[in-house]
């Protein structure tokens, strides 16, 4: 029979764990709301930019742009977007798994990892694809997630591509579908895939100032920045969604555990009392007899 005191201690400890997990769930729910708002706020910008780019490139095409140059894949960068903190289920592992698949796919090239978020960085730091020089501060991006910060990073990537230091850039991140569902996605950032011109309202005769080609050349880097920023925002929202789900499950499990422990505790208590009564009765009987 389990010791009564032992069970009592376990109940207390499971209860306090439950308090922590349910508090973390609440915090994540609040942060998720904020992250989702940020995505919603960015959406009109992203959509309009896509519109304009489609309209402008309808006749010019982006093929001439340096950013859509298809080169032999000698240097490939993989941007791995994970979270800074754990306790969010399979969130980070899924991204790392996908990133490793992408790395394996490009075995013919020199693959470098650009880590966004601590967890992915911690994993890839031990591999040959990691150079400290390229990742000065992998944690910093999620400490202050802003468009300026994201566009700084995108700027560096774009410049490296233009200078020929890298021939292909892939982003691996968790796309946010809803609070419970994240989709691991590998997206090609560079070279730019030609935008679909299907949605272009080509019937409108725009005045372009300066020339169309110049506008397209200016818009492509901007849309890349937006694409990266969107990946970061999506990942951030996904992280909190994943943590919310994970913590919800943990709280439920802790509840089950406490229920089971309480049952065992009460059974043990009852057995002890029964035992005591039997002893007393037996003692009394012995005196009378």
């Amino acid at each position, binding site marked *: 029979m389990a010791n009564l005191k032992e069970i009592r201690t376990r109940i207390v400890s499971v209860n306090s764990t439950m308090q922590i997990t349910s508090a973390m769930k609440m915090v994540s729910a609040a942060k998720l709301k904020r992250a989702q708002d940020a995505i919603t706020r960015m959406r*009109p910008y992203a959509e309009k930019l896509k519109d*304009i780019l489609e309209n402008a490139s309808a006749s010019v095409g982006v093929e001439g742009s340096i950013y859509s140059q298809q080169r032999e894949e000698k240097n490939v960068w993989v941007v791995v977007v994970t979270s800074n903190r754990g306790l969010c289920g399979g969130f980070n592992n899924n991204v790392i798994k996908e990133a490793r698949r992408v790395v394996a796919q490009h075995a013919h090239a020199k693959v470098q990892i650009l880590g966004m978020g601590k967890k992915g960085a911690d994993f890839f730091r031990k591999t040959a694809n990691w150079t400290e020089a390229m990742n000065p501060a992998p944690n910093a991006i999620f400490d202050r997630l*802003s468009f300026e910060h994201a566009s700084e990073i995108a700027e560096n990537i774009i410049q490296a591509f233009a200078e020929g230091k890298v021939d292909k850039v892939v982003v691996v991140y968790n796309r946010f579908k809803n609070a419970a569902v994240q989709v691991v996605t590998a997206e090609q950032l560079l070279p730019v895939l030609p935008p679909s011109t299907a949605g272009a309202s080509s019937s409108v005769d*725009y*005045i372009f100032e300066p020339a169309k080609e110049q506008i397209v050349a200016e818009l492509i880097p901007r849309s890349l920045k937006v694409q990266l920023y969107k990946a970061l925002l999506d990942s951030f929202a996904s992280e909190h969604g994943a943590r919310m789900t994970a913590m919800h499950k943990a709280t439920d499990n802790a509840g089950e555990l406490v229920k089971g422990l309480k049952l065992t505790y009460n059974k043990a208590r009852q057995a002890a009392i029964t035992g005591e009564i039997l002893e007393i009765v037996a003692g009394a009987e012995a005196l009378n007899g």
Partner: protein
Amino acid sequence: MQIEIITPDTTLYAGEATYVFLPGSDGSLGVMNNHAPLISSLKKGTLRVKDNAGKELNFEVNGGTVEVLNNKVVVLAE
């Protein structure tokens, strides 16, 4: 006409306006009602919006793009 000033982080302004002054990269441009469809890039400068009440609003932009179509001005600012 309608004007919207959008940045990646937020919508700065959305509403009616009678006149918009933009720092176009090929020279400043003013947009009034019934302007022809236009797509232009912007350089760093001040964007001035005169709303229906005649009040003037100023926005600093670091560059961006503007689209004018059917009396709707959309500024993608940075």
